[in-house]
């Protein structure tokens, strides 16, 4: 579904990712692991078109690498970005409405809103509250719900567990597992390898802008490389 080949990502003059290739198949959950500064977020930014990149980004057989950010989103990519980036000056409901910005049909939009509110009851309770007043975990749920409002074909999740208490982390991963069983295609960026590998069908390990290992979650989970990269112990 999503194919990336020889992707180089740049922040100004700095090259953060040096030619990686990866593949996300329809209905699968693929995990992208790696330590701080490995280039995971840069890769996500290149897929959405926020960061400048060279190489191929193909989505459903179409080359997106020259398309604008907006066109890529319209093609069916949605992202819950690093740091959540909810619109804290808007209410919870307004955040969700913006998530479905491309949905023209008001009835469908209302249906989706109700659907996600039923799945995230805590958000439903706070629907008219300013999003800035939510707790970290609630904000993360809002960020994911906002992305889902777009009815994406693929969901990019950048470190959804970052900075959350273990109990909340479990909730978030349960949610992702649930989405997966509903057939959502997911690219999950995580530092929390144990949890991510439990979910993922296939995983890539990044370090210093390169993919250093990949394989099924089981294979990679057993590899020494993973432990070495993530803990810094060689």
């Amino acid at each position, binding site marked *: 579904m999503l194919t990336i080949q020889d992707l180089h990502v740049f922040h100004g003059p700095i090259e953060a990712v040096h030619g990686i290739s990866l593949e996300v198949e329809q209905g699968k959950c693929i995990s992208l692991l790696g330590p701080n500064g490995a280039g995971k977020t840069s890769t996500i930014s290149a897929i959405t078109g926020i960061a400048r990149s060279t190489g191929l980004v193909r989505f459903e057989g179409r080359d997106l690498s020259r398309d604008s950010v907006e066109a890529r989103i319209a093609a069916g990519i949605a*992202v819950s970005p690093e740091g959540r980036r909810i619109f804290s000056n808007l209410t919870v409901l307004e955040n969700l409405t913006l998530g479905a910005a491309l949905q023209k049909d008001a009835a469908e939009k209302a249906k989706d809103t109700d659907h996600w509110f039923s799945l995230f009851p805590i958000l439903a309770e706070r629907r008219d509250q300013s999003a800035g007043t939510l707790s970290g975990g609630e904000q993360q749920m809002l960020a994911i719900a906002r992305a889902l409002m777009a009815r994406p074909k693929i969901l990019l999740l950048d470190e959804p567990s970052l900075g959350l208490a273990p109990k909340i982390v479990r909730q978030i991963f349960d949610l992702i597992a649930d989405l997966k069983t509903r057939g959502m295609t997911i690219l999950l960026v995580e530092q929390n390898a144990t949890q991510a590998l439990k979910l993922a069908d296939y995983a890539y390990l990044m370090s210093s802008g390169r993919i250093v290992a990949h394989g099924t979650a089981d294979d990679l989970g057993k590899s020494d490389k993973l432990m070495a990269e993530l803990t810094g112990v060689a």
Partner: protein
Amino acid sequence: MEYIVQQVLNALSFGAEYALLALGLAIVFSIMGLVNFAHGEIIAVGGYTMVAFASLAIGNPMIVMVGAVLAAMLASLTLERVAFRPVRKADPTTGLLTAFGVSIVLQNLFLLFVSPRPIAVTSLYFLDWSIEIAGIRLASLQVFETLTTIIVIIALMLFLRRTVLGLAVRAASLDFEMVRLTGIRANRVFAIAFLISGLLAGLACIFIMARRGSVDPHLGFEPVLKAFVACVVGGFGSLPGAVLGGFLLGAVEVAMLVMLPQSLGGMTDAFVFMIVAMILIWRPDGILSPAVEKGDKL
């Protein structure tokens, strides 16, 4: 009694004009950090459009007013495309200086191609007559101006709360990139902000022209300077701040006009700015600074 009501209305109509202009400045600033020094020239475009209608012998006031507003909106949109797009991502100082340069170019274009001297426009005099409400005589123009502004503020609020594009404009003031990541085209958000800004300037233009009856290349300078000050007082980039600042400035100005002796008439603005300076000593970021809102992005 009559005198008090008249002065209150006076203050409201002054404030309304500043609020309209300040809102137009704030909405553009909130999404792209641009201090639009060329806002005054948008007003002048409206004024010269009225001149053009007059020279075509079109006197229908509806056509003149709608035409002027549309011209202001078009001018605002054009400036965004031609002048401000290259500095969209630049720092505020670069944007500010660009706008300053654009303002100089436009003023001198009016000078070169129209005239450095004021040109009379009489088609809007009909807006100003004396009306009597509950036994109190008031200037109709001031009533119109105040009412229009209130209606416009309500309409703008509804737009910003009820429509996706309106939500996007509000969200963009916090995190423009994230707005793009919801699939809304950045160009549309910029276009709508400049269109609103032009619309507000065009409306203000109608009232300014109805009062002054003539247009010259510097038509917009003084009201926009006041609007800028209103924005600074209210907190630059905050929309409620712009409205608050505008009405506050109107009230201070009328208070000065009433209280200062005749012999100091030419110095009203100096006294108004002095009071503003005192407010800024108290709150350097303005009364409703959006800085607090921006902070929780981190």
